[in-house]
Structure formats: C-alpha cells, structure tokens
C-alpha cells in the first residue's frame, strides 16, 4: 500500500484506509465488527416442548462488564440500570415459557434456587446486545456458559411494547430448556432436595455439611435429613421468608422496568438510528471525491468538515446516554436507594439468620 501511497496523510492512503477500517470508527462507542463477538442468534419461538419441570430458577442481576465503574459517566450509570433490566427481561421470558417453576430475580448470588443464572453485559447499544450467560445448578454442574448476541433491526422496534432483543432472551431460555427437558422427574426431585440441603448447609454449615459430598467435582447428597427434622422445618420457614423477601425485591425490579422501560427503549432506538446514520455517513463520505488541490481552503474544509461531522455524530451517542441519565436519574436514584437498602437488608438478614440459626443449633444441642 505504501508504494502507492507514499504519504500517510494523502488522499489515496485515506481512501484505502477507509476501505479497510470503515467499521472501526463504530467501535467507539458502537461497534459492528468485533471478531470476538459471537454470531447473532437465530430468531425462534420459545421452546415449549415436553412437560414442565418444577425447578426453581434464580436470575441474578447481571454484572455490568465494565473494568471500572465511573459514577460520573452517564454511560456507566446507564449500564448499571441495564444490569437490572436485562435480568428482569430474562426472568419474564423464562416465566412466559412456563417450563420451569418460580423464576426470581436476585440482587446477588445465593444458594436459594436449584438453578442459578448469572451473566455479564459484554456489549449493549441499540443495535447489538451481547450477554455472557452462565447457569449452574445446585450440584455445581454448568448448564450453560456461553455468549449470546442479537443484532436488532429497525423492525424490532416497531411494536410499542415489544422487547427489541427478545430473540436473544428466547435463545437463552431455549438453551436452558434444551438441557432441562432431558432430565427425568427423579433427577429434578433430587436436584430440588440437594438445593434445599445446600441452602441449609449454607445457613448451618456445621450441622448440614455432612449431608453433602463432593464427587468428581459435583456436589451430591450423602444422605437426607430425617423426616420431621425440626431444624429443616425451621430452615424451610426461613427459606419461605426469604422467598417473600425476594419477591418484594422483585417487585422493585418490575417497577423499575415499568418506569424506565419506555425511556430505555427510546435510548436504544435512538442509538440504533444514530449508528445507522453514522454508518451511512461514513460510507457516503468515503465515496466522496476530494478534487480540490491540497492546501486549498476547499480541500482542507472538506477534510475537516467530514472529520468534525463524524465526531459529532459519534459523540451524539454519548449525549443520548446523558439524556437518558438526566431523565431517569431521580427514578433510578429512588429505585436504586430502595434496591440498595433491600440488598443490604437481604445481606444483613442472611448474616443475622445465620447467627440466629447457629445460636439455636447450639442451644438445641446443649452447647454453651
């Protein structure tokens, strides 16, 4: 290339450069061709084949995937909101399929459910959503550990209340069900029992750890607590209280989705439109010939105006994120405070329950 374009700032170098890197510009903040990204999932209906299974699922609020969270950065705050909204949407799709038992959104990881789904937002803008999703059951077996991507089109935004990235969430739900539907009812029952004992062991490790054993890297039941075990009854009571508590937390997430959903969709739609416009502008600008002689005002103005326009378009995406932030900040803060308080309470209750339960165990066993 250098043989044809001796000056790296020449128009011919520029033209070739545009040809080879026309999509690179979009990588900040919108990217279109990161080779590490998976291919977009196929559009498919929710798989409802087979009999439903009574497995409780927990979807943990997603990780934001940011190396450093800057609370002053509107895009980071937006990502923080997304971590909750994405979990809520996944829960909704899993519930819609009616293949599993109760599906709850948890503020942090817990041994509460037989199957726990965690995830990280790898990339999110109005066009591409990439999630790394991991699902691990009570035995420690991985059901799922891969990335999902959906590239939205204009048509995905046509329905007023439709989730534009629904195919991605359906793909996650189908992948989970693809694993689950091969399980026998007996396996499901044992998984639920194991989940119950692991939960008990988490609360009272000294008392219930013996009921568990690790075999080939997976947790199994060594034995079951006796029927009518008063401690198990107590743990189940606490577990039900926690379920109620989590459902209260869940309502907060639902409210968040209702309040912020329309604005969030608007942000995503605006981002998509902006990205599409930017892409077409890049293409048009790269095809436009600059016939004015180098050094003339016309030549320099065209070069500078093109650069300025592309930068402004690119930065408008940031402003859109700021616009979202400006519009949602009071709500997010309110919801955030409530959620943070609830998270804190949930975590505090865990430790309180553990200490109370440990004390009860000690009292019942006659220990000082």
């Amino acid at each position: 290339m250098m043989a044809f374009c001796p000056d790296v700032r020449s128009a011919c170098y520029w033209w070739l450069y545009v040809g080879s890197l026309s999509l690179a510009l979009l990588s900040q903040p919108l990217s279109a061709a990161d080779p590490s990204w998976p291919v977009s999932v196929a559009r498919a209906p929710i798989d409802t084949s087979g009999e439903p299974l009574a497995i409780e699922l927990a979807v943990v609020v997603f990780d934001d995937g940011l190396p450093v969270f800057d609370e002053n950065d509107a895009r980071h705050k937006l990502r923080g909101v997304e971590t909750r909204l994405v979990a809520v949407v996944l829960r909704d799709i899993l519930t819609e399929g009616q293949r599993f038992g109760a599906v709850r959104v948890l503020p942090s990881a817990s041994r509460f459910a037989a199957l726990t789904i965690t995830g990280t937002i790898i990339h999110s803008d109005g066009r591409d959503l990439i999630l790394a999703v991991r699902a691990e059951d009570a035995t420690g077996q991985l059901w799922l550990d891969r990335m999902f991507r959906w590239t939205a089109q204009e048509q995905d935004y046509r329905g007023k209340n439709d989730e534009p990235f629904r195919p991605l969430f359906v793909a996650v739900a189908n992948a989970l069900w693809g694993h689950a539907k091969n399980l026998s009812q007996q396996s499901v029952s044992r998984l639920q029992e194991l989940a119950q004992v692991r939960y008990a062991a988490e609360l009272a490790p000294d008392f219930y750890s013996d009921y568990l054993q690790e075999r080939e890297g997976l947790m199994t039941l060594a034995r079951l607590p006796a029927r009518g075990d008063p401690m198990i009854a107590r743990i189940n009571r606490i577990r039900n209280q926690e379920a109620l508590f989590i459902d209260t937390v869940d309502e907060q997430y639902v409210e968040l989705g209702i309040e912020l959903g329309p604005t969030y969709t608007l942000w995503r739609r605006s981002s998509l439109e902006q990205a599409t416009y930017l892409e077409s502008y890049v293409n048009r600008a790269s095809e436009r010939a600059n016939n004015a002689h180098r050094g003339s005002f016309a030549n320099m103005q065209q070069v500078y105006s093109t650069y300025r326009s592309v930068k402004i378009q690119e930065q408008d995406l940031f402003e859109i994120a700021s616009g979202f932030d400006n519009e949602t900040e009071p709500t997010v803060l309110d919801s955030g405070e409530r959620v943070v308080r609830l998270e804190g309470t949930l975590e505090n209750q865990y430790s309180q329950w553990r200490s109370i339960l440990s004390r009860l165990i000690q009292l019942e066993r006659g220990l000082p």
Partner: protein
Amino acid sequence: MTSKTFIAALVCAAVLTACGSTPAPEPQFYAPAKPVDMSGAWEVDHARSDNIQEQFNAIARQLQREAERRARAAERGQTVGGPSFSSGRDLFALAEMAELITAPSLLDVVQTQSEVRLKRENSFALVYMIEQSAPVVTETPFGTEQCGWDGHQLFFDIALPDGLHIRHRITRSALADFLVIQTAVYSPSVKQPFIVNKVYNRYNPNNAGYRCTQTLSRGTVCTTEAPRS
C-alpha cells in the same frame, strides 16, 4: 513581544518561507503528566485572544508589498525569489481554516477520574480517556488523534487526510482563573503552522437566568429554576 506581534511576525515569516513541500509537526516528547483540573464553563475573552482578522490584514499588506516589489523588479528586468501568489493563497486558506477550527467561543469541560471532555460549542468534543498514558492514539477512517497530558498541558494532535494537521494545547493559568488554548494548524503547502491563541475566562452558565438539560424523550428542557445546591 506580545502574542499578537509574535503571530504577525510568524505570519510574515511564513509568507516569506512558504513553499510547496509537505510540512509535518516536530516529533513530540512528553513530560510526565501533572494533571490540572480544567472543569467548568469557559467563554472566550476576545480582548486577550488573537484576532485572526488582524492577521488576515497583515498578510494582505505583506502580500501587497510583495506584489509591488515583484512588479518593480519585473520592470527592471529582474526576478525575485521567494514564494509565489499561490502560496499566499494557501496561507490565506490556512488562516481561514484556523478561524474555522478555533471558532467555538464557549467551552464546557467535564473532568472525571476516567476522562477529560472538552465540549466545544458547535463543534466536536475533545476527549481524553485518562486511564492510558500519553500519547493515547485513536485511529479512525477520517483521521488519527493523539492526546494526553504533557506536564500540566493537555494536548490533542489530530492528523487528517491530505496533510491537514491540527495541534491543540490547553493550559490552565496557575495565577488567574483562565484557560489558554493554543491551536496550531499545519497545511501541506505552507511551511509554518498558523497559530492561534485563545483565552477563555470562567463564567457561570446559570447567570443567564435559565439552564438547559438534554433529555431523551423531551429533547432539550430548559428551566428558570435555580439549581439545587
């Protein structure tokens, strides 16, 4: 020597030494970063900033004298070395470009732990992501940007196609509350850069009696309410 006379001298020197070669800025060596807080709203101080119109006039007078000198020499059957009129036009073009590039009169600098964002009125923002050390290079199909701290100065070097090169250096005065942005514009057909110094004073945008916020669903929303402290 004031900055204006310095620039005028620089312009004259540029006229006399201009040629068709492609200049490039000198390679840069950066001092260890000593970040300075530049955040806030800033407006241009025209009285203390360079006046490009005056520089235009100086160039015009210089070119006129040059033309007259050439004409007299031609009458005597002599030839005069030095730049031709085309390089004069290129210099005018460069000055016009400098005016275009330095047009923004309002700045809104947002400085966080992770970035410095200089939002310029009616232009694109100059953004430096702090986590990387200077120079941070960003390549795009339409130009390459380098930025970072050079001591207490923030710099942005933008290399654009066809030899257009822009170098901004932003300094916050240690003694008084003002910013200076020195912009050097390089053209492939003029040997010396055209340099413009703009001084910005801090101002309070709320003094306008209203303040505006960008929102998504309602666009720009303005209010006359005083901001909550």
